[in-house]
């Protein structure tokens, strides 16, 4: 009974938050389109897409992600798309970028724990060393940083020219921050393995 309610709660949460975000991003899109601010309306357009992404989960009968992970995703979108790019925190606050990377490292770590649970059925989990969980959580989180940097790098080559402006040092600090976040969750998962 409680499980079912929990499942429905997650569906409602995702629908409400996604719709709110999409409306917010669409308003921003039209505002900046009207102002002729091409970089900001493009970011808002991307914001609509990433806000709509969790809606895919509605088609699942039982959403595997827990509520903190779901809320964490929306927090991430807010911090990077709106605060970071549109409100220019990335430009004005030097520590913003690395902090987001650290946060993202943690979030992907928890996402990794959920993926681990989906991919490895409960009955065989006792046959899997907890180092698999540790390595999986850590390396998935690090990989997300790499993919993010590749996205920035390719974006800069093709049309933005600003994302990796900080050069090699910036890229390396991003990677270090992401790795640190992932490491934290990996250790957490190691000690919580009995419950995972």
């Amino acid at each position, binding site marked *: 009974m409680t499980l079912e309610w929990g499942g429905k709660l997650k569906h409602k949460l995702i629908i409400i938050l996604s719709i709110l975000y999409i409306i917010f991003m669409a308003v921003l899109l039209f505002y900046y389109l009207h102002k002729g601010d091409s970089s900001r309306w493009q970011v808002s357009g991307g914001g609509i897409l990433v806000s709509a992404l969790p809606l895919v989960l509605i088609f699942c009968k039982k959403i595997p992600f827990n509520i903190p992970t779901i809320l964490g995703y929306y927090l991430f979108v807010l911090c990077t798309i709106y605060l970071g790019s549109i409100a220019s925190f990335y430009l004005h606050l030097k520590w913003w970028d690395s902090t987001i990377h650290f946060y993202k490292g943690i979030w992907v770590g928890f996402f990794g724990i959920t993926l681990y649970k989906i991919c490895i059925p409960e009955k065989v989990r006792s046959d899997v060393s907890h180092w698999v969980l540790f390595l999986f959580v850590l390396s998935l989180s690090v990989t997300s940083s*790499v993919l993010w940097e590749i996205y920035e790098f390719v974006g800069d080559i093709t049309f933005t020219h600003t994302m990796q402006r900080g050069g090699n040092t910036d*890229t*390396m600090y991003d990677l270090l921050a992401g790795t640190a976040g992932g490491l934290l969750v990996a250790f957490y998962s190691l000690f919580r393995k009995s419950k995972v």
Partner: protein
Amino acid sequence: MNRKLVIILSLAYVLFMAILAFNLYSTGASFKGAVAIGGVVCGAIPLFLALFTKLQFNLPIVVSYLIFLVGSQYFGSIRGWYGLGWWDTFMHFISGAILAFAGIALYERLIHRNAGDDISPWFVFLFTLSFAAMGGVLWEIYEFSSDQFFGMTLQGGGNKDTMTDLIADTVGGLAIAIYSGIRTKIKQSKSN
């Protein structure tokens, strides 16, 4: 059998590098000589493991490790192929693939055999890919910290170089990860 092959191959590499170091030092090429000494040390690692431990060897890993050493130390540094530009990227691609193999071997050792049939091939794919990508990141972190703390210029090529390295690592890992995912899938459909 594996053990003998590991001993022969790594002994051959150690001897080759030792002779090379001797020749290089005697002709005054002391930097390349130091690389060759490094080669002796790197080649000695599997040799000592084979001689003094009871470790079970995974032959593909040892062989690809030695190929990597030949590529980076002999061709890259001593023959100067790193100056070619694409060689560095190519070696990163190879090392991504090697790391992926190492990831698979590690994974297989860390799960009980009977559990393998129930674990999604996607997990094997993701584990292998991200293990290789993480290896690439750790390598760049090592280069970066050497530059920061010891004033070296390992990342002298700047952001573009770092990113090309990371992409090559990831692509190398991806190739092997796809292979391992498909292999797991086939294995599972056979046993079911």
